[in-house]
């Protein structure tokens, strides 16, 4: 590249460093004509975009139009100031994890997983828990030193906590896939508040996951860790055993 990147001043890159070029698509209650294009242009201008090009406008009928545009943003970010919390335990294979538990904990650990409250999407949590696993990583059920219970879909927080208490769980794994109207935040908050009220919060690890979950959000909600899209059983297993060993 012709110039070295200045990490304190970063903009989108179209074909020249920091040109700020972005593609935007949206619909609006405007006519699919010059006036609609102008409305779109003004909106984008307000958002700090420049060199705005409305490259497509189509009538969606019922008074709406679909717009595709390009523009250059004047916003920028300072990469040196970006801080994100991420799970930073080393990832071990299933065999390594089992060995780790044997050596450092010397007892089977108990994991309870569930897709809680209104959410019925089990594919994600199953990918983490089921024998079969996901993308060539076996699920926690296959770990010799893990005692894994998968409670399935739409499990009420109270039922999950009751089970956890009954089985003296080491870690609770919660999945939340649906995010409409921030329902995942509501559900996850409900669980953690109940756990606190019942004095269970500090007795076990609380871990959540789902396509719109990240570690940052999980911490913010009071969980020990969060795992997003593309997580594997190995990631979460390594985290659990490392944390338990350090306790």
């Amino acid at each position, binding site marked *: 590249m012709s110039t070295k990147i200045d990490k304190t001043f970063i903009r989108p890159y179209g074909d020249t460093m920091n040109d700020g070029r972005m593609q935007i*698509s*949206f*619909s609006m209650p405007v006519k699919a004509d010059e006036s609609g294009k102008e409305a779109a242009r003004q909106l984008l201008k307000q958002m700090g975009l420049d060199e705005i090009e409305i490259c497509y406008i*189509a009538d*969606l*009928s*019922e008074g*709406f139009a*679909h717009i595709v545009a390009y523009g250059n943003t004047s916003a920028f970010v300072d990469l040196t100031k970006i801080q994100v919390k991420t799970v930073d335990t080393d990832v071990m294979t299933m065999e390594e994890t089992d060995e780790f538990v044997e050596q450092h904990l010397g007892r089977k650990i108990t994991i309870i997983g569930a897709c809680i409250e*209104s959410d*019925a999407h*089990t*594919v994600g949590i199953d990918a983490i828990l089921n024998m079969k696993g996901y993308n060539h990583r076996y699920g926690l059920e296959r770990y010799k030193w893990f005692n894994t219970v998968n409670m399935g879909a*739409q499990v009420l927080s109270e039922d999950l906590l009751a089970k956890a208490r009954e089985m003296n769980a080491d870690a609770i794994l919660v999945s939340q896939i*649906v995010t*409409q109207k921030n*329902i995942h935040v509501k559900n996850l908050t409900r669980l953690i508040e109940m756990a606190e009220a019942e004095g269970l919060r500090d007795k076990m690890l609380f871990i959540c996951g789902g*396509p719109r979950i990240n570690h940052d959000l999980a911490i913010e909600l009071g969980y020990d860790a969060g795992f997003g*899209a593309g997580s594997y059983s190995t990631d979460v297993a390594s985290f659990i055993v490392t944390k338990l060993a350090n306790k």
Partner: protein
Amino acid sequence: MLHLTIPQDKIDSARGFAKQITHSLEELLNSYSSVTIERTVLRLLGIDGALEDGTPIPNYIVDQLKSKNALDKGVAYWISNAIVYTGLSAQEVANSVKDGKLELTQIAQQPTTEVIKVMNDLTQKMIDHIKQQRAARESYFAKYGPRNTPSLYVIVATGNIYEDVLQAKAAAKQGADIIAVIRSTAQSLLDYVPYGATTEGFGGTFATQENFRIMRKALDEVGAEINKYISLTNYASGLCMPEIAAMGAMERLDLMLNDAMYGILFRDINPQRTLLDQYFSRMINAVAGIEIQTGEDNYLTTSDAIEKAYTVTASQLINESFALLSGVSPEKMGIGHAFEIDPCIENSFSYELSHALLTKTLFPHSPIKYMPPTKHVTGNIFEAYIINAMFNMVAQMTGQGVQLLGMLTEAVHTPHLADRALAIDNAKYVFNAVKDFSSEITIDKEGFINKRAEAVLDEAISFLKRVAEQGLFNALEKGEFANIKRAQTSGKGFEGVFRKSEDYINPFMDKIKQELNLD
């Protein structure tokens, strides 16, 4: 011509096992009824409305009769008896019950012929209304021309019926043939149908009769504007299957998602309850000329689409066989299938084509319902858009009947206005581009596509055979289906199943059977 070469005896054998499976349930289907079936009868008699707390009147009445151990005669008798006694209309009788002014089981037994007459008149009236709706649909199609093949099917799912209307109208003008109002999630599990227009839902809008009416009216209006009949669909599924079917029949819905086994497997609804409910709901759909659609896609969103392809085939054949028992004609069976193979798989297109062709081969008269890629769709909206193009291509090439358009934002949110328009544009472009392509090509009999289809059928046959041998309930109990274990007497709604008494009457079932020449 694109077609598979599959030995007919294999097809016959698969169908034979499916028939064996469903026909062994005739005793159940004839001797039992369910609370939903009775609520349906109430609705068909013309009873609607809800209590202050939202409990629908049909639920209130059925629950009351049940608590009096009077349900096994069937609600029709009690209502008709009350009508004869009071001289009120069915709705007035129901309102009186609701208001605590009337107790059905306390009313003296009226002369049987009079009761039967009232019952038959009301039945005939409703059947006439339903047939009128059917005729209306047919005359719209006659006037505006038949539905496109594949039809463009899009969903609206805002939760607010009025917002849904706006989006449905826009979609119709953009070229959609069929509008599906996706239900608020887990409506399957509600043992009642909510009442009235609704403006809040979760991931969808409640299926209510008023919502049906509002949307039907809007689509008829937009249809008149654009000279096209816009079909409407919803879900006759879950704990209220036949009630929703009845509402659809009354309000002229045109298609209904109506799977024989979905509730059992994917909603843990009691198997007997589900089978009874689907039996009656499908009769209603049949007499109303409503195209049913089955839900085989559900097998593939939870399991691997290649490994479990045979479960789709097996389910299709079972669905077909059940539908025949209810008098649904093959032209009205939208047998389900889905494009859910991992796009990273080598030759994924050939696999999909093979599976889609197998469905078409097995159900040549079916307006096959083809579900879009969803599970392997990621937040890469551009990638999603081209995978949807491949899906559209397979549909046009294999002559699928109803194309449930994939959304480029499948992994992000329920469809936005522009997403839907882009989906329609995608299908229109691809359908047109490959319009007659399949009529020009032939598939190698010894090639992968043909062999693959045959292999899937083979697997389905041995699966169906195993199920037929042990019986459907035992197979369900052992987790043969989708690896999910379901016991005959557990699951939601089992308490709503009851054995009919000797003098049980369901005048609608009797009448419809007659209409459809069943048994």
